Structures are given as C-alpha cells and as structure tokens.
C-alpha cells in the first residue's frame, strides 16, 4: 500500500498507452491490407476469383458481425439479404421491370432496400427470445428464395437473371477484385470504428448484461435498429457484388449453406472481435480450395467446426490470439479508493429536490413484497434500507429504477411523479444503480465496462462513429478520461486494461460503482455493495460512499452489514414484511426495541 494520496492522476498516460495499443491492434489489419493490395503480383487469376469472393463475403460478414458477434443476436438466415441485394441489383441493371439503371445506382438502391429489410428481419429480436429469433431468420431465408423462384416475371424464376457488370476500370477481373477489396476495407474500417465506440460497447452490454445496459440508459430498440439497418445495407451491397462475380444468378445459388458459412465465420473468429471473424471468413472461403475432394463435404465440415468451437473454444480465434490477457495478474493487489477524486467526478452536482416514495405497494401473486412504503432520499445524504431477507429491499430498489410498476402509491423526483416502467429513462434522470450480483461484460476490459456507464453522455450519432468523425473522437476521449477518473476514484486504475472476467468479486463491486459514477448521478442506488467484501474493503467503501454523498449525490444503501449502515447513514429505514418497521437516525434505530427484536438481535 503505497502513498496513494501523493500519486498525481495522469489521464494522459492512459491515452498514450491507448494509442500504442491501437497501433498494435491495427498491425494485423495493415498486414492483410498489404497482402490484399499486392495480390495480383504473385497470385494467378483463379486465386483472384477466390480472393474476390472472400472480399464479397466479408462485406456481408462485417455487418453481420455487429449483429451476431457484438449484439449476440443469433441471426442464422442472413443469406436472405444477400439474395435480396443480388436480385435487386441484377434486376435493376437488366431493366426487367423499369428502364435499366447504371450499376452503381442499382447497388445504392439495393443498399437502401437491404437496410429496410435488415430492419424488418431484425426487429423481432427486440421481442423474441434467442431460439425464436434464430428460427424466424431461418424462415425468412427460406421464404426469400421461394419468392425468387416464384416471381418469374421479375427474377426469371428458376432460369435466373444475369448479374450486373461494373464499367471500367472495374470490368476486368483484377479491376473488380480491387473494387470489392476497397469496399471490404471500408467495411472493416467502419465496423472497427463502431466496435471501438460507445455504440459497440453498448451492444456488448446488451448481449452480456442487458439489465445493466438498460440501467445505463442504453435503448435496445434504437441501437439494434441502427445496427440492423447498417448490417442489412452492407449485406445487400455484398449481394450486388456477388451477382456480378457469379455473372448469372438463380435461386439455387443462395442456399442455406452460405448462411451457415457467414455465421460460422463469425463464431470461429470470436465474439466482440473484428479481426477474428475477418480471419474466419478468409479461412472458410479458402479452405475448400486446398481439398478439392472435400468440397461436397464443406458444409458438413463447417458444422463440425461449429460444434468444436462451441464446445471447446467458445472465445474463437480472437481468444487464442489474446496474449495480453494471459499474463498473470498481481495476486496480492488491493483496492485503494481515492475518495478525494469524487469531487472532480461529480463536479457540479446541483442541490435538487428529493426522491420520494409515497405509500408504495406491490405484490407478486399473493405475496405482498412491499406494502405501503414511504421513503425519502435527500441529496447529499446516505439513506440506509435494511431488513431481513424477503422484507422488500431489492423490490423497493427495482420500483425506483422502474423495473416494477407499483400497484399503489407514487415515486416522485423533485415533486414530479416518475413514469413507471421506463427503466432506461432513469439514467437520463441521473439515477444510477448497482446490482446484487455484479452485472458486467466479462469479455470487455474494466475500462470499457466503466465507459459503458457514460453511454448517454456521448453526443455523436451512430453514423458519426461509423465514419470516425470529430464528434465521435471527442466523445471517446471524454468517456475514456472520465472512466479513468472514476476508476482511480474507486481504486481500480491499475486494472483498467484487464478483461473484467478475470477480476475478483470485490473488484467487480467497485467496478460497478465506477460505472454508476459515470452518470454523475444525482441519486445512486446500491444493492448490497458490501456483500463479499473484506472488513478492510468495507471501511474503504464507507469512505468512498461518504465522499459521494458529500459531493451532493443522494445515496440509497441496501445492506445487511450493520457496521456499514450505522457508520455512514444519515437516515435509516427498517423494513419488515414489506412495511416500515422503523425509520430515523442511526442512534434512534439502534435503540428501537422492535428492530432489535426483529432484526438486529438483542
């Protein structure tokens, strides 16, 4: 335990380290870029076709990767969008239904159509569970092929339609290769931008810790909507390129095998990775070429590969290549919060009104979880909520955060009634919370996890992040600096680059607090933050919470540890069977006879 007080905080150091690692992460991409650009120098025409196909596939997979690898939505039938894009482009260029259009315009229209259908296919994901969504995408893939077969006047039915030919300089084989390669490179760049943005982190949060994501104000419909639009657009563009590469398309060209290839490329590559799926796509495209007799068996082999990946290495290639996180962590590390930094984090906490519960009641079936509860959480104070198991503490917290609608009574902020059941709006009211079991994105770094907490404070749009425009970069710098400050305040600065699933339980608790602080909360709701902490850690937590309250934040502390409660609370409410048993200052509660009987033990 060094003299931490004297260590000055240098967020800039983190930035330097950040940009060095960014360069390291970009190296494999640059290597692929060099190989790709110089390919015609050392490869024959046949390999040119294979490489073009890999590029076309990657244009689609890059977008699908955001859906599958980042948002964790099991979208199996993405070939439907490839089909749609291929037919839209081909039909518009061929002029079957209206005067023929130039190929680029047709490709752009296909992108728009693809975006719309990406949204249509994707939207059920908002309502449906995993397997249901997987099945609907599968069904959609079947339907699109059948429509292509049936709608003869437009698609040519089983006979097919000629693919578009792009004009010079992209008409030759290598010219077309460079066209596809360029688009693939742009897609790589754009998706890598998203991956490194607040949107990318929010996607992984939706995947691994959905409830926490909502508590951070992340709106799943808006975010997934944007991702489906993008993913659909690039998939349809890939379709247009695919049609041109095939030079003639029939419904037979779009089997489910292709869908499986796309999907498996991502899983082989690994979740939350761009480079892994990119490598996966190249591997799966090239592999059958080395074993000609196996071509018929390729889908079988992909399926075997999928099974092996799921059972043996769920992390995929990306995890195998993640050398950084295999270095052992210091074993006797301690969490040393620096409460004095809290003031800098919660700079201008205004002295607003209180958060009040009036006569709130809620029952589940026949069980009255809370029954006429009154509570007032004032800014700048720590309010303790204690009581035996099942007395309604966590339920109270969930009512305040908007997960449950009270059947009676009202929750008011500053005198105004809060909208019930709008949990993702709570973050915008600057109400932050932690969870009884920490809800963390295990595969992301501690720093990224904390940055998730500030998602709603970014100003740039999804498109700005896609193109890495200035506002995006400003957001990222701001979030990174604030997150480093929050991590320093809770004492986890050293662990910022570490994968969160390598942390100890107590460190996860402090990580959650850091994430909650990112909101600069007016009210902070803590669900048993001291559970599983050592005595020493609990006393550091006390100091931290007091500093947070001093900065003007109202803290609601649900706890079992009497020491913590009586040490730091300004006001305590004791619950029993959903009712207030007693309320008052710590001294009053300590001497309250019923409380002693029911809870503290005499």
């Amino acid at each position: 335990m060094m003299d931490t007080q004297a260590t000055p905080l240098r967020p800039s150091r983190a930035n330097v380290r950040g940009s060095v690692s960014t360069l390291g992460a970009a190296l494999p991409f640059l290597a692929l870029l060099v190989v790709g650009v110089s390919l015609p120098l050392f490869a024959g025409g046949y390999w040119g076709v294979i490489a073009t196909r890999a590029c076309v596939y990657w244009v689609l997979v890059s977008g699908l990767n955001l859906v599958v690898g980042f948002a964790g939505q099991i979208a199996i039938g993405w070939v439907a969008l490839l089909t749609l894009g291929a037919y839209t482009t081909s039909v518009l260029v061929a002029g079957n239904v209206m005067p023929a259009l130039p190929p680029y315009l047709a490709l752009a229209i296909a992108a728009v159509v693809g975006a719309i259908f990406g949204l249509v296919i994707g939207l059920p994901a908002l309502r449906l569970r995993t397997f249901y969504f997987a099945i609907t995408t599968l069904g959609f893939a079947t339907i699109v092929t059948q429509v292509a077969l049936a709608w003869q006047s437009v698609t040519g039915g089983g006979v097919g339609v000629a693919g578009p030919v792009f004009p010079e300089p992209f008409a030759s084989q290598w010219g077309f290769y460079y066209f596809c390669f360029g688009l693939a490179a742009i897609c790589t760049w754009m998706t890598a931008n998203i991956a490194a943005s607040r949107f990318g982190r929010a996607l992984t949060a939706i995947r691994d810790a959905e409830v926490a994501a909502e508590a951070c104000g992340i709106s799943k419909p808006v975010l997934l909507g944007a991702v489906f639009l993008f993913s659909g657009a690039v998939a349809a563009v890939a379709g247009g390129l695919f049609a041109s590469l095939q030079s003639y398309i029939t419904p037979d060209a779009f089997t489910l095998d292709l869908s499986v290839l796309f999907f498996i490329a991502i899983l082989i590559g690994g979740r939350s990775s761009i480079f892994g799926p990119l490598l996966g796509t190249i591997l799966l495209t090239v592999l059958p070429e080395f074993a000609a007799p196996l071509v018929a068996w390729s889908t079988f082999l992909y399926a075997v590969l999928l099974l092996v990946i799921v059972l043996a290495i769920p992390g995929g290639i990306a995890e195998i290549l993640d050398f950084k996180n295999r270095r052992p962590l210091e074993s006797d590390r301690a969490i040393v919060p620096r409460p004095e930094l809290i003031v800098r984090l919660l700079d201008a906490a205004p002295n607003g009104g209180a958060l009040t519960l009036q006569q709130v009641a809620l029952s589940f079936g026949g069980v009255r979880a809370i029954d006429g509860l009154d509570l007032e959480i004032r800014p700048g104070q720590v309010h303790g909520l204690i009581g035996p198991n099942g007395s309604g503490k966590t339920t109270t917290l969930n009512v305040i955060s908007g997960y449950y609608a009270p059947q009676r009574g009202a929750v008011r902020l500053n005198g105004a009634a809060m909208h019930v059941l709008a949990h993702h709006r709570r973050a915008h009211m600057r109400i932050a919370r932690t969870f009884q079991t920490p809800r963390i994105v295990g595969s992301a770094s501690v720093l990224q996890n904390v940055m998730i907490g500030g998602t709603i404070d970014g100003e740039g749009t999804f498109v700005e992040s896609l193109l890495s425009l200035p506002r995006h970069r400003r957001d990222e710098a701001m979030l990174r600096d604030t997150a480093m400050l929050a991590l320093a305040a809770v004492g986890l600065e050293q662990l910022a680059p570490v994968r969160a699933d390598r942390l100890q339980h107590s460190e996860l608790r402090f990580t959650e607090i850091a994430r909650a602080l990112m909101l600069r909360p007016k009210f902070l709701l803590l669900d048993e933050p001291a559970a599983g902490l050592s005595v020493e850690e609990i006393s550091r937590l006390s100091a931290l919470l007091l500093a947070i309250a001093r900065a003007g934040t109202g803290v609601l502390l649900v706890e079992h540890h009497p020491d913590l409660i009586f040490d730091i609370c300004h006001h305590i409410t004791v619950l029993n069977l959903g009712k207030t048993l007693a309320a008052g200052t710590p001294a009053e509660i300590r001497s309250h006879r019923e409380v002693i009987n029911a809870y503290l033990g005499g």
Partner: protein
Amino acid sequence: MVASIVLSGVAIGCIYALIAITYNVMFSASRVFSFTAGTLGMLGGVLGSLFIARMGMPVAVGFLLALAGGAVFGIVTEIVAVRPVLKSLDQHLYVLSTLALALMIQQFTAIEWSTEPQPFPRLLDIAHVEFDQQFWLPMLACAAVIVGLELLYRHSLIGHAFLAIAEDNYAARALGLPERRLRMMSYALAGAIGALAGFAGGEMLLAFFANAPMLTFYGFVPVALGGMGNNRGAVVAGLLLGLFQQTANFLVGGIFASVAVFTVFIIVLLARPEGIASPALRRRV
C-alpha cells in the same frame, strides 16, 4: 375440394404437432430447444425408405428400426450437443451446438442418401381410397402419441419423474432423481416421436433431406404459438397451422402460402411472444 383440403390439412397438421411434441419433450427435460427436432422427422422418413424400400425389410421391422434410429439420434443429441452446454444455459450455446449437429446430419443425409426426394413405400397393402392411409396414418400416430404421453405422465412412476424434472430441475435432483439418465431417456423418447412423425408422414413428405429445415421451422410454429412445453396447445396450433397452410395453398399457391404462414407466425409472435395459450410471466431483475 373442401374435404381434400381438410384431410390433407389435418394430416400435415398432425405431423407438425408431432414435431412440436418432439421439441417439447426435449425442452421439458433440459430447457433446451433443439434444432434437431426437424432432423428427427426427416430421419424417420429416410430410414423408413432405406429399411423397407431399399433393403426390403418387412414393414414392421423397418418401422421399429426407424424409431430405434430416432431414439439413438436423440441420445446422441443429448450427449454431444446438450449436456456439454447445459452449464452455460444463459449463454444460449445450445442454439449453436444443436444447430451444428442438425446441419451435420442433414448434410450427411444429402450426400450419402440423395439430394433428390426419394419415394417412401406404401405401408399397408390396400388400394388408394379417398380417406387414404397417407392421411390417416399421421392422424393415428399423433393420437397414439398424445394418449401414450398422457398415460406415461399421469400413470407411471417414470412419467412423474419426467414431470418433476421439467417442473424444477434442482429440487428433483435434490430428491435423488437420476437427472442425467432421465434426460437421456427423454431425448430417446423425443427421438422416437420425431422419427414416428417422419415415418407416418413419409408418403406425404417423401424421404428427402431438405425436410429437416422445413420441419424444424413448421414444427416450431405450434410450439411458439401453443406455448413452450404445452403439448395440448401444440396439437391445437399444429392442426390450425396445417389447415391454414393447405387452405392458403389452394387459394394463393404453394409458394405464397409459405409466405402467408410465415407472416402470420411473425405477427402472432410479436403480439404475444409467450404464445397464445400461456400466461405472460417474466422476472428479470
């Protein structure tokens, strides 16, 4: 005309219902929806055609062997694709592992059996009549399975054990029930039911590898609409689906009929994600 629509609709609906029951039996034992449900149906048809038509076995022997094949594949599913991922149920790895297994079997069948639909033998040596065996065999199979399952669940010790596992896995294990063995038996049972669906419907659907994804989708529709784990809901929804599909087939043609089925499926699911028959109950925090 109406009679033939009703006849084929109910018959195909019974096949969907049987696949839905296959889903449900596996789901009750493990909380896992398996992509192999449709594959089992496909296998029932292919194995029946293989044993009876190609290898010339008697119908009864071929029938039993086809069911046994389904049961074996059910057990393989449990061992290979379900048991290893049960620990991480919340990560939905089972969706991928069962999908992988289903694709493997489907591809294997396509290459080793045929990529074209093959004829399925007529099981009973009686002439074609209007109410033909190809229609009443699936109905009979469906009725037999429903009655059999009811008897099993209500009147046998092992059926009670199945129900206990389905209701509360942990409590059942705490009571000393051999959870793993019961799960394997459930999967074997599901395998046999799935194979029966394909076998009984063999003459309508033929012995065709692509029946696997088709049945995986159409068999899941009744599960989703009837409520998961709810066999009665599944049968009702299966019959409705069959009738709706055949009617649409007649009115707008085969391909747009599947578009119609898909559209209705999505709309109903979006309106009531928990199924028509089940109450909505969800606790997340």
